[in-house]
């Protein structure tokens, strides 16, 4: 601590001395006459300006290649190629302007500095000049707009018919994905049907039934519904409050009283939230009952079967050289499905599916081979058995602030060759179609059927946000 104070005092002293020096400089300047000082100061700082811009430009040209290989992947997807081209064009245009104007700025400051014999010229305007620098930027920008919009339409335009459709869903703080099963159709989803067993709210006859039972309960299945659980909890808390109040009123020990009051405050807070939770569930049940009538289900009989065979793997696979079409959804807040290598970036919006398409051009394996040539990637890190490149994967991140765990929303994209992909998707389909079978239960309630755990990080759903982050980051 003592050294800390010493350092602090030293800094203060240095600052004081420096300040006294600057004050003296100012005063001396005044004594020697303002004009002479102005000329000298102007010369000095104009020179500094020249040095500054020279160093700046050297820094610019030096550091640019230094980082360019780290910047982005320029060829792993069609988007990356298109955007890199646009980027390069814009970089040239702006780069030239950047260098010229900045250099001129500091050079003028030097060249036309105040000094004996230099006189300013009353040059207030020139229509010709102003016309030139209105029209030239306009033309250049028009070019950029035209190229830019061409690229934009290409990237955002309608997807191809045979594109691989993948549905990805973001929630705090992980991604999950779903594929259309062998029938080639993604089952519909409904927010009201979301529950622990059906985390995405897939709509099938059974899941509708299941949700009815989880909400309202069922005497036949001896299952207590969520609404009733909450009502019971409410009664329980009211009972607890009575007990605690009795303790507070009766106990002579002030520490016990204080502790009990704290607990009381907590459970009263919980009690306050229960009616709202009950209302929400009653409303959901009401909507489910209203919407999924027998006639409705009969009218949409087909759609109700689409969800049976949809695999929900724990990572995204897409075949190489074929367009992938992402349907992007969110359950709670905004997220953004971001694949840096592929230049894929699109918000996930609760309540409105968005979409984005891209064509991966290099498989994960080929990319690893490509990286093997890079010395930075061929090292074997401590405690590892394989070199860095062998563990390379295309990563998915979240690019829209979504809360505490925003920086931990990592997911994996695997680009397969067509054969690998076919094998993989077939395996997934067979694995998940069993699930579909298990859902078709006669009593319409699958709670006790072997529903496989959904995509890995689901376990964290029940923890509070602040817990999640410590788990996932440390």
């Amino acid at each position, binding site marked *: 601590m003592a050294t800390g104070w010493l350092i602090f005092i030293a800094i203060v002293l240095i600052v004081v001395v420096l300040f006294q020096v600057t004050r003296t400089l100012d005063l001396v300047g005044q004594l020697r006459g303002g004009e002479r000082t102005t000329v000298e100061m102007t010369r000095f700082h104009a020179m500094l300006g020249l040095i500054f811009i020279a160093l700046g430009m050297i820094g610019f040209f030096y550091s640019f290649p230094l980082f360019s290989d780290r910047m982005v992947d320029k060829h792993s997807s069609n988007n990356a190629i298109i955007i890199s081209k646009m980027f390069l064009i814009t970089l040239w245009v702006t780069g030239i302007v950047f260098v010229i104007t900045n250099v001129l700025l500091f050079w003028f*400051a030097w060249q036309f500095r105040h000094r004996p014999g230099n006189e300013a010229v009353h040059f*207030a*305007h020139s229509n010709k000049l102003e016309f030139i620098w209105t029209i030239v930027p306009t033309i250049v920008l028009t070019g950029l*707009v035209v190229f830019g919009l061409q690229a*934009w339409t290409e990237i955002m335009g309608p997807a191809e018919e045979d594109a691989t459709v993948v549905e990805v869903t973001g929630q705090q703080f992980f991604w999950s994905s779903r594929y259309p099963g062998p029938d080639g159709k993604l089952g519909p989803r409904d927010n009201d049907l979301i529950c622990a067993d059906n985390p995405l709210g897939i709509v099938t006859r059974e899941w509708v039934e299941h949700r009815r039972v989880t909400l309202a309960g069922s005497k036949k299945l001896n299952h207590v519904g969520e609404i009733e659980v909450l009502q019971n909890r409410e009664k329980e808390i009211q009972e607890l409050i009575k007990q605690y109040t009795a303790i507070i009123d009766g106990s002579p020990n002030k520490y016990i009283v204080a502790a009990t009051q704290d607990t009381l405050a907590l459970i009263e807070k919980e009690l306050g939230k229960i009616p709202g939770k009950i209302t929400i569930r009653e409303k959901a049940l009401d909507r489910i009952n209203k919407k999924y009538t027998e006639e409705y289900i009969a009218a949409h009989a087909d759609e109700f079967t689409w969800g049976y065979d949809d695999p929900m793997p724990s990572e995204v696979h897409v075949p190489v050289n074929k367009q992938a079409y992402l349907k992007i959804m969110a359950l709670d807040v905004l997220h953004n499905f971001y694949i840096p290598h592929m230049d894929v970036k699109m918000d996930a919006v609760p309540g409105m599916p968005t979409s984005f398409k891209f064509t991966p051009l290099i498989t994960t394996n080929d990319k690893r081979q490509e990286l093997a040539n890079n010395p930075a990637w061929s090292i074997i890190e401590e405690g590892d058995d394989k070199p860095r490149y062998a563990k390379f994967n295309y990563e998915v991140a979240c690019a829209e602030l979504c809360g505490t765990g925003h920086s931990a929303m990592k997911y994996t994209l695997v680009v397969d060759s067509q054969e690998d992909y076919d094998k993989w998707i077939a395996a997934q389909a067979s694995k998940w179609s069993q699930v579909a079978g298990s859902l078709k239960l006669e009593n319409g309630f699958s709670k006790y059927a072997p529903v496989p755990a959904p995509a890995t990080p689901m376990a964290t759903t029940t923890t509070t946000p602040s817990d999640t982050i410590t788990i996932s*980051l440390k």
Partner: protein
Amino acid sequence: MSAETSTHAHHVDTHAHGHDHHDHDHHHEPGFIRKYIFSEDHKTISKQFLITGIFWAIVGGLLSVLFRIQLGYPDADLTWMKPFLGKWISEEGQIVPEFYNALITMHGTILVFFVLTAGLSGTFSNFLIPLMIGARDMASGFLNMLSYWFFFLAGVIMFISFFLATGPASGGWTAYPPLNALHDASQGGVLGVDFWLVSMAVFIVSSLLGSLNYITTIINLRTKGMKMFRMPLPIWAFLLTAVIGVLSFPVLLSAAILLLFDRNLGTSFYLDAINLAGEPLANAGGSPILYQHLFWFLGHPEVYIIILPAMGMVSEILSVHSRKPIFGYTAMIYSLLAITVLSFIVWAHHMFMTGMNPFIGSIFVIFTLIIAVPSAIKVFNWLTTLWRGNIRLNPPMLFAIGFVSLFISGGLTGIFLGNSSIDIRLHDTYFVVAHFHLVMGVAAFFGMFAGVYHWFPKMFGRYMNQTLGYIHFWGTIAAAYLIFFPMHWEIALPRRYYTHSGFEAFSGFEQLNMFISTMAIISFALQLLFVFNFFYSIFFGRKVREMNPYGATTLEWTTPIRPGHGNWEGDIPEVHRWPYDYSKHGRDFIPQTEPLTQYEIEHGEHGDEHDSDIIKSEEHKG
């Protein structure tokens, strides 16, 4: 002439002349409270804005230092901060992620609204408008005072939110729903966002009162001869800034009202189909994208609210200190106007990747890139102003030149971002952070510094320490470039990340981040030098002894060295020419108050492109 007309006209007259009577009422010396605290004098209010702005700039800067420590030195042991920050520092001595989010949110909010809107426009609009157009004070001194105190109140509310158990708003300065609409989605969302929204609403009232005053004053209270096209450029900039403020802030107000309703009254304007951590919500039918549209309908004009005053002041300072008329005065005004108009129709370029209609997006691309044209005109005009000038490089001039440089560097990257296809790569990455910090953060700060150094003698009757000013300038411009230029290389690195360590794709930037953080800390320390210089000079700076130390043409330099209430002791001076007659007819400068001579042609009267030639021939005659 009907009786009605005469009464009607009569009102106008009473009010037009009202201001000449104004100062008669104030001959008695007001008490301390009326003079310095609840003052209605525009100069005092402007100083109040400036000092409050400086306070908020220190707070906002400090927050950025904290989160830069997390980014640059993630392993640093900050246990010693525990006494101040409590649970926001983890047991391992690191900033916790929730606090990191709160830091970036508050940093953005404070700097955008409290420092660069209120602190910049509030200070200089208040100070310069009456002085430069020749008015005794603002149109309504009372509303002007209220404007400051609403700003103060907004600040108090925001400041209180730091001390909430669950912390201040932590969902980003843009406060996007649903993250900021839900009480349970983040800790800041529990109560912090409510404080944030209320504070913003109060701030909007303040901004509105201020802006109405600025506009009305400029329209109605110009002194005799002060035509619109004889107004100095800062006044044009303040006028248009105020216009933008009056028209765009209300839209933020409606967005904030809707968000407050969603948070507290169970409505669903921005919410639809939400299931938060397994808990279903009853909301249905809204759209989060709606908020973004409303927000950016304000938010984009807001960046021009920040940068226009700086542009105006820089134009003035460049002209004064290069002893040359600003080049293309009319073009400067029209480009300001063009920027103002365009600022209202480009908002969605912040939203290309948010799920909005890509076709509408492409229309926004076209509008957005058009803005580059007036901006380019301004830059070229500034450069030409320097060309063949007689440049005095004192701190205000250096900061003005620095502004131009930063505006170029930061503005050019806007061409990348405005192009929707490139924005796919750049959206929400450090490239964006670098862009807007250079172009509207640091550049606006440079405009502000230039203004403070330039008009400090008028504000306080003393000079700031020049040597400290030089150190401040070179340190700041170097630090600013060293912070934000390398940030462009972090092109694919997503912003608002507590740590990038979880991703292979984002690795390799640790050293760069450390470098940037170090520079940020140095740059913050340098600003304290300015703060010291500012307050020290108010009391102990070298006294101003001449009325017009810079040899400037504008009206504020015709007032006494320390102007009292009412600004001019005698009559308000009359104006006879435009404000940029420097180095004309062999004279260093001709004040605006000097009548035109017989042979002289006023600038802009003939619209001839050989203006300079004519003047040369005039010179030969003379």
